[in-house]
């Protein structure tokens, strides 16, 4: 692996991926794995193992920051995460027996449907986002002439 130029690109990509991860509530592996495979030239396995190592500190730093802002319910999140471990181990075991390519395409279709639904929901929300949609609108110009 060449040193400085590639390292700078990696750090810059880390900033981008970390920012999106912190904003979107994901680990960032979905950005890093294709990048490491296509741009850096790692194998799929190397890329996944490397990306996992980066996801952990990313989630830690983002959660710490959100915790200080009072945004996150840590005990609830911990329960979800512990159940997630059980699911993850089961999923990894199942993956050995199921056709991965077919699953990925099915899942990509599902993500597309869900993504479009979220975009439609967002479009229907009032631009401020804070106000309830069914608020009765009182005409502002009800002043007598």
């Amino acid at each position, binding site marked *: 692996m060449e040193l400085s130029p590639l*390292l700078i690109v*990696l*750090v810059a990509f*880390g900033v*981008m*991926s*970390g*920012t*999106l*991860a*912190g*904003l*979107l*509530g*994901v*680990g*960032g592996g979905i950005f890093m794995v294709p990048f490491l495979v296509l741009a850096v030239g790692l194998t799929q*396995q190397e890329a*996944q*193992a490397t990306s*996992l*190592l980066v*996801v952990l500190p*990313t*989630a830690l*730093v*983002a*959660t710490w*920051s959100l915790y200080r802002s009072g*945004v996150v319910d840590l005990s609830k*999140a*911990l*329960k*979800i*995460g*512990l*159940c*997630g*471990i*059980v*699911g*993850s*181990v089961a*999923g*990894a075991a199942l*993956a050995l027996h*199921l056709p991965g*390519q077919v*699953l*990925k395409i099915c*899942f*990509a*279709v599902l993500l597309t449907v*869900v*993504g*479009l639904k*979220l*975009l439609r*929901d967002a479009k229907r929300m*009032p631009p401020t986002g804070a106000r309830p949609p069914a608020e009765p609108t009182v005409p502002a110009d009800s002043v007598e002439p």
Partner: protein
Amino acid sequence: MTTAAAGGRGSGPYYLAIGVIGGLLSGLLGIGGGTVMVPLMVLWLGTAQREAHALSLAAIIPISLVAVLVYGQAGKVDPLAALALTLGAIFGARMGAGLLAKASERPLKFAFGFFLLIAALLLVVEG
């Protein structure tokens, strides 16, 4: 879609189920749990977008910790790449979390909706 308990009281078991489903798909497909957990919370429980993103991030900590311990040893990590990415990512994660703490529901929903479309594309491209 039913909003099971609107993220309020009594929604505990639903969150636990979301953890299992999120982890399952994550382990099965090698994608991050957040991509699965956030939409489940939002569409199934009616959790607000920001709360769902924050819960997902914190839930990723134990999941990725175990994943690192289990798969990190098996897979060949590129330590230099991991270090460089981490240096950038921890800086970015602070910025992203700062943005999340201030963002309102509508732009977050838009951003996550677009993210899912890109994630779907990457999933197919990556193969």
